[in-house]
Each structure stands twice: as structure tokens, then as C-alpha cells.
């Protein structure tokens, strides 16, 4: 067993109550490293194609990485499952301290399968694993659950991952929270947990995490922390402003999604930017395990109608989804709105999207006040936003339909709503308008979990002008390299926000110090490629192909009406060219299916054969 691993997969079957401890094999480690690598591989192999994501056949795979629990800055775990929102592959990473605790409890990977008959929670106390009754926790919100479990187990330092009411009610984009409010947020893992009648997972781990070369690792860290300090993003921008630092830039480039994706600049964005946040509501800076960047801001609303609202956030993404999309420039209202999402336990990005989508429908008369129980659901109505979010989390009234996510909600509402709905493969996009960022246009289209900004994470480089944001040329190759590097990040369980300090040559330096075996740049790239390809293969088995790698029609037709990206659309012809080039670079066929040859060259020959039925003649 290489260092940096506990050496074990813990498998809990909630249907039978059986707990098994399997060895984490050398072979698995060498080929997949950890995190998203191991998680994706296990998910692909253990799930049959076509299963219902909310059935007992789905699994929740919590995978830590070799960096988890060490002094090398890391997130905590990656959660792989089949998404009830999109019906395809998803992985969601979460920060905080839960992942480290899991590893110290001797568990690199935790697999939860089956379905308990009654509400249960899982208690992992080092070697001892118990499935305990959770009837008394059912109906409690995420923060109450956290406190009650710790109280009941008699140790405040226990780490608890849990769902709220939204997860219980199978809101399709319910999240799993750990620590205070770090979360596996996107694509609805909380609903999968709810469908299993699993309310919480409590962990206490007291074991050691070893690394291959501790002394050299400390020397590396001394140098690394200097680099972190000197690098603008990690040394100044994220620590001071957090992700909200992006609000100014996105508006000044006209790509800040506003008025439910009809505009690219928010009038009055200065009221919700990082500077205003820092001045008015930030109480403290917070960091995930051993992270020198402390991008997280804890805020409290100090006056006015939302006084007392407390939040770890908002982030750039929620400032966009609860600020830009519904045209809400009241920072305090954004805090209150996200507090509701976190308390009930659902993704505030999709949450903001579905409510803003309903606002769009309301303004066009597609839905009326009869549908909204009298709520005046117009853009800018912040109280309506807050009330509707609460209805979504509790599945009340129109909220019950919106809780299905924008794709399904639009289908049910009909009357032209489907043209308005913004999603790729069923996932509502992160806050970057692809019309003004051509690399983002491609990245969101091909990302493994739908319109996602993290899989390829090209947005940073376009937003800050490292590459020309309006050029189509060269983006496919740039994106491919990003996807591979960030797949390796996710295998290590590193955070995206350290992207500037982990170029390939630093990754090749730090990984051996942790795991004790060498991986050169080419080997790491191949590892990244393998992960990208297995995730794609998972999706191909679910029916995904080129037809799904597109933005909604209106992004090709309707130009951005204002701001510095005025007049921009995604040009269909140019887009298709980028897409074809991307497939070619990836070794995928013209329909976006990984070729047999490519898969064989990556040592994934079996998958090549399994995908045969999905290839066109």
C-alpha cells in the first residue's frame, strides 16, 4: 500500500445493513490515484446503465484523495453518483474537514448503496460502523441536524455530512452539507441520499495519515507557500475578496448572466460586489483544511429587513444566481436567499436559476399569479425570490414543479417555456455567459456533468484575458489541457482556486512526495484523459452524444443586448468547428463517442467494447 492512503474502501448497504471493508488495491491507486479517478471508475463499473438515480441501485461514492488529511492544501472529498437532476454522471467536490476525518477513520472511499426502510444515519467511529435510527432527525434542517447529531454522540468535533428537508423531499438538486456549510452542491446528491432514507453520516477519525516523504514535503511546502503568497490570485485576490471578486470583471466584460440569461450586465452590480460585501457584511475569513487561500467569507446582515441572516458565502456563483438572474441588487436579500437554500439543503445555483426562470415565465404570462399562489413573481422582486426558494425547498405549490430542475419544469409548464429554459444536459449553467466567452461556450457544452464551470475551468483564463475571450480558434486544445489538469486536481482532491500554483511541473513534484511513486507529466495527462473518458463513457451509456453537447437554441440566435459583449452570440458554424476539433483531439468520433482505439491506448479496452452498441455505422 502506497503512503497517503488508509488502504480501505468502506461499503455500507442500507438495504441489508451489511458493512464491508475492502482493501483499496495498488492497481486501483496506480491507475486512478484517488478522488474523482477512483470514484468515477467505481461508479462506471458498479452502476448498470439506465437505472433510476433515486432507486436503491444508485450509489453514493465519497472518495478522498492522496492529499486529503495532509498538510498539502486540499478539499475534502469528491462525491460520485448518478444525478437525479440530469440523469447522467456527476461528481461534486466538497471542502471543509469532513474528508480528512473520513480518512483518519481508515476510509479512503465510502460507498453507500441500497435503501434503508426507515430514516437512518451512519456513525463511523474509527473502526466501528453503526447504522442508527434517524426518525427524530427527519424533517430537521441542515444546521439543526448537524447540532443534534454532535450532541447525541457527545463530541463537538465529530464531522457530519447531512441533508436537509430538500434532500428528504427529493428536490432534484438537493445538496449534501458537511462541516458548517461546505457542500457537495450540484446535480442533486442530496436527493440520492434522501432516496436512501439516509439523513446523515457522522465521522470521528483518530488515525494517522502518513506520506511517503514527510521531511521533503515540508521543504516543498515552505517554497510552495511562498509561491502562493506571491501569486496574485492565491496571495491577494481570493484571500481578500473570495470568489465575489469576479463580479466586477464579469460585468465589465458583459458576461454576468442577468434577467434570466437575457442580459450580460446587472445595473447596480456595485451594490453586490466584493468591495461592498467586505465593507458591509463580512465578519471573518474562513479556510478549508490547510488552505492558505481562505476564499470563504462568513457574513452577517447587520440591519434592515434581513437582519440576523448568517451565511458562509455568498460566492460569485450565488451572487449571479440570486443577484444577477432575478435582478436583485440587495446584497442582504441575497444573503437571506442563500441562507434558505443552505438551511433547507439545496443548490443555490440551480435554485436561483429555477426561480429566475419562473420569473421569466411570469413576466411573459406563461404562468400567472394563480400558479404562484399570489406571489408577484417579477424580476427584481426580492421577497418573492426568497419566498419562492422556500417553496422549492419544501416542494410547495409551484415550488414542487421547480424542484424538478429547469428542464423538467419547463416541460411541465409548456407554452413556450422550454425555449426559455437554460440548461445543458439538464444542468443549469454556472454564471458565465458563453456568448461572450467562446471557450466557456465549448467547455460547458462538453463538461461531464452538464453546463459546468469546474470540469474544464477555462473561464478564469478568458475572464482575465490570458486568452482572447472572443476567439474560437485554439480553444479546443486549450480546453483539453485544462480538463486533464483539473481531472488530476480532482483525483488528488485539490481545489480549483490553486490553479495558478499547480502547473504540471509542480503536480509532478508534489504527488510523489505524498504517494511515493513517480508520475511524469505525460503519465499524469494520461490519467486525466482516462478520467475524462470514463465519465464520458458513463454518459454515452445513458444516451448522451453530440446532440447533447449544445447550449439552448437562444444562445445561438439572440445576441447579448447590452454591455461590452453587446451583439455577441455563439456562432453555430464556429461552434461546430470547435466541437469537431475537440472530438478529434480527444479521439472521439464525430458523434462524440470515444473511439475504440483511443480507449485501448488509455488501457480502457473493455470500455471500448462496451460502447460498441452506441456507435453509429
Amino acid at each position: 500500500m502506497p503512503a497517503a492512503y488508509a488502504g480501505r474502501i468502506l461499503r455500507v448497504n442500507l438495504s441489508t445493513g451489511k458493512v464491508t471493508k475492502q482493501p483499496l488495491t495498488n492497481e486501483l491507486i496506480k491507475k486512478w490515484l484517488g478522488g474523482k479517478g477512483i470514484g468515477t471508475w467505481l461508479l462506471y463499473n458498479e452502476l448498470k446503465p439506465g437505472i433510476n438515480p433515486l432507486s436503491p441501485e444508485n450509489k453514493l461514492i465519497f472518495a478522498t484523495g492522496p492529499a486529503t488529511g495532509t498538510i498539502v492544501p486540499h478539499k475534502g472529498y469528491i462525491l460520485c453518483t448518478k444525478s437525479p437532476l440530469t440523469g447522467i454522471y456527476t461528481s461534486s467536490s466538497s471542502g471543509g474537514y469532513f474528508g480528512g476525518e473520513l480518512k483518519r477513520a481508515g476510509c479512503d472511499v465510502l460507498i453507500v448503496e441500497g435503501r434503508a426502510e426507515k430514516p437512518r444515519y451512519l456513525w463511523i467511529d474509527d473502526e466501528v460502523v453503526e447504522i442508527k435510527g434517524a426518525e427524530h432527525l427527519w424533517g430537521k434542517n441542515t444546521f439543526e441536524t448537524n447540532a443534534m447529531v454532535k450532541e447525541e454522540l457527545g463530541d463537538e468535533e465529530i464531522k457530519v455530512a447531512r441533508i436537509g428537508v430538500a434532500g428528504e423531499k427529493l428536490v432534484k438538486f438537493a445538496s449534501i452539507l458537511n462541516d458548517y456549510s461546505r457542500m457537495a452542491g450540484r446535480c442533486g446528491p442530496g436527493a440520492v441520499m434522501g432516496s436512501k432514507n439516509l439523513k446523515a453520516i457522522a465521522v470521528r477519525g483518530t488515525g494517522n495519515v502518513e506520506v511517503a516523504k514527510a521531511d521533503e514535503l515540508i521543504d516543498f511546502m515552505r517554497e510552495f507557500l511562498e509561491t502562493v503568497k506571491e501569486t496574485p490570485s492565491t496571495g491577494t485576490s481570493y484571500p481578500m475578496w473570495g470568489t465575489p471578486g469576479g463580479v466586477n470583471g464579469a460585468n465589465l466584460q458583459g458576461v454576468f448572466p442577468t434577467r434570466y440569461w437575457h442580459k450580460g450586465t446587472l445595473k447596480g452590480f456595485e451594490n453586490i460586489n466584493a468591495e461592498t460585501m467586505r465593507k458591509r457584511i463580512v465578519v471573518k475569513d474562513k479556510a478549508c483544511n490547510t488552505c492558505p487561500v481562505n476564499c470563504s467569507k462568513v457574513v452577517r446582515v447587520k440591519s434592515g429587513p434581513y437582519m440576523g441572516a448568517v451565511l458562509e458565502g455568498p460566492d460569485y456563483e450565488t451572487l449571479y444566481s440570486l443577484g444577477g438572474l432575478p435582478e436583485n441588487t440587495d446584497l442582504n436579500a441575497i444573503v437571506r436567499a442563500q441562507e434558505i437554500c443552505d438551511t433547507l439543503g439545496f443548490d443555490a445555483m440551480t435554485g436561483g436559476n429555477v426561480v429566475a426562470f419562473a420569473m421569466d415565465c411570469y413576466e411573459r404570462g406563461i404562468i400567472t399569479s394563480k400558479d404562484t399562489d399570489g406571489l408577484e413573481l417579477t424580476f427584481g422582486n426580492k421577497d418573492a425570490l426568497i419566498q419562492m426558494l422556500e417553496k422549492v425547498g419544501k416542494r410547495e405549490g409551484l415550488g414542487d414543479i421547480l424542484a424538478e430542475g429547469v428542464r423538467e419544469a419547463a416541460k411541465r409548464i409548456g407554452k413556450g417555456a422550454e425555449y426559455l429554459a437554460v440548461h445543458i444536459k439538464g444542468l443549469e449553467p454556472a454564471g458565465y455567459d458563453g456568448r461572450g466567452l467562446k471557450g466557456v461556450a465549448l467547455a460547458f457544452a462538453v463538461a461531464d456533468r452538464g453546463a459546468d464551470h469546474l470540469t474544464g475551468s477555462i473561464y478564469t483564463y478568458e475572464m482575465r484575458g490570458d486568452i482572447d475571450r472572443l476567439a474560437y480558434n485554439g480553444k479546443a486544445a486549450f480546453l483539453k489541457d485544462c480538463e486533464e489538469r483539473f481531472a488530476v486536481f480532482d483525483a488528488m482532491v485539490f481545489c480549483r482556486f490553486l490553479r495558478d500554483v499547480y502547473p504540471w511541473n509542480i503536480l509532478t513534484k508534489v504527488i510523489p512526495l505524498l504517494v511515493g511513486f513517480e508520475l511524469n507529466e505525460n503519465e499524469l495527462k494520461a490519467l486525466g484523459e482516462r478520467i475524462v473518458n470514463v465519465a464520458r463513457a458513463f454518459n454515452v451509456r445513458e444516451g448522451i452524444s453530440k446532440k447533447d453537447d449544445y447550449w439552448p437554441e437562444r444562445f445561438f440566435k439572440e445576441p447579448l443586448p447590452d454591455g461590452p459583449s453587446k451583439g455577441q452570440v455563439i456562432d453555430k458554424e464556429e461552434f461546430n468547428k470547435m466541437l469537431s476539433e475537440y472530438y478529434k483531439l480527444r479521439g472521439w468520433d464525430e458523434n462524440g463517442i470515444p473511439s475504440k482505439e483511443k480507449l485501448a491506448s488509455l488501457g480502457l479496452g473493455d470500455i471500448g467494447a462496451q460502447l460498441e452498441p452506441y456507435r453509429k455505422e
Partner: protein
Amino acid sequence: MVHKFIMCNQEKCTGCGTCELACSVTKEKTFNPKMSRIRLVRIDPFIDMAIACRLCEDPPCVASCPRDALRQSEENGVIIVNDEKCDGCGWCIEACDFGAISIHPDKKTVVACDLCDGEPLCVEMCTRKALELSTLNTLSNKTRNSVVKKLFRFLLG
């Protein structure tokens, strides 16, 4: 005699826990917060603060030990544990007002911060400089100086 000890500025502390792992790797060559002599307390969501031995004058931990296993160094004030004598009864843990002395998970004897010969890695690696190795006297001097500088910042430019 005024001793230096490791103090934590709670306003600067982000709760990252690097100090715990820096300590654990220095003292035990492994990563485990439970092995650390400095321990982080997180009271969500607003408070994070690390606590290490405060090298008290007349330390109650020393006085409470029924086996005379603890003594205070005359040179730098750290608590020295005699592993032969300590049997992990934990009276010193009860006596310490700060929870700054704890049982070693493997050895089952108590451990406390020994300042690592004046160059602790926890302080070095604290990116936000929340940790400081200092005496209470220099702390108050520093605080006075910085508040006066703040008051007259219009003169200092």
C-alpha cells in the same frame, strides 16, 4: 521571568488547521490533529482559534500531578513530562484552564507544547500570521504601538 508562548489572534485565524498538522509532522512524523500539541477550536461559523500551552507562572498542571511527572523548565518555562512517571491519569488535564495539555493517543502519557526550540513550524506556516511566539509583555507593547499608529495614521501617511 516572562515566558514566550504561542498565542493565536482569533480575528486572523481562518480555521485551516495547518498548525495542527505542522505540529504533528514535526513531533510525530505523521499527519494527525489528535497528535498535535497545538489544538484548533472551531465554533461555527464565526470563531476559529488555536490553543497551545501558555506556560503559566506556577503552572497548575505541575502542581496537580500526583506522581511528580511534570516540571517546568527554568530556562524557557515549557512543561517537561517524564514519560517514566506519567501514567496518563489526566489530573493535569483537569487542572489546565485552557485544555492545552492532552493525552498522546499512542503513548497514553500527556504532551504539551515545548516551543520547538523557539522555531515552531506551526507559527512559520501560519499564512495569515494568526499565530505568534511572543510574551504577554511584547504583545501589549505591540498592541499599544499599532493602535497609536492607527490613531495618527494621518501624520504617518
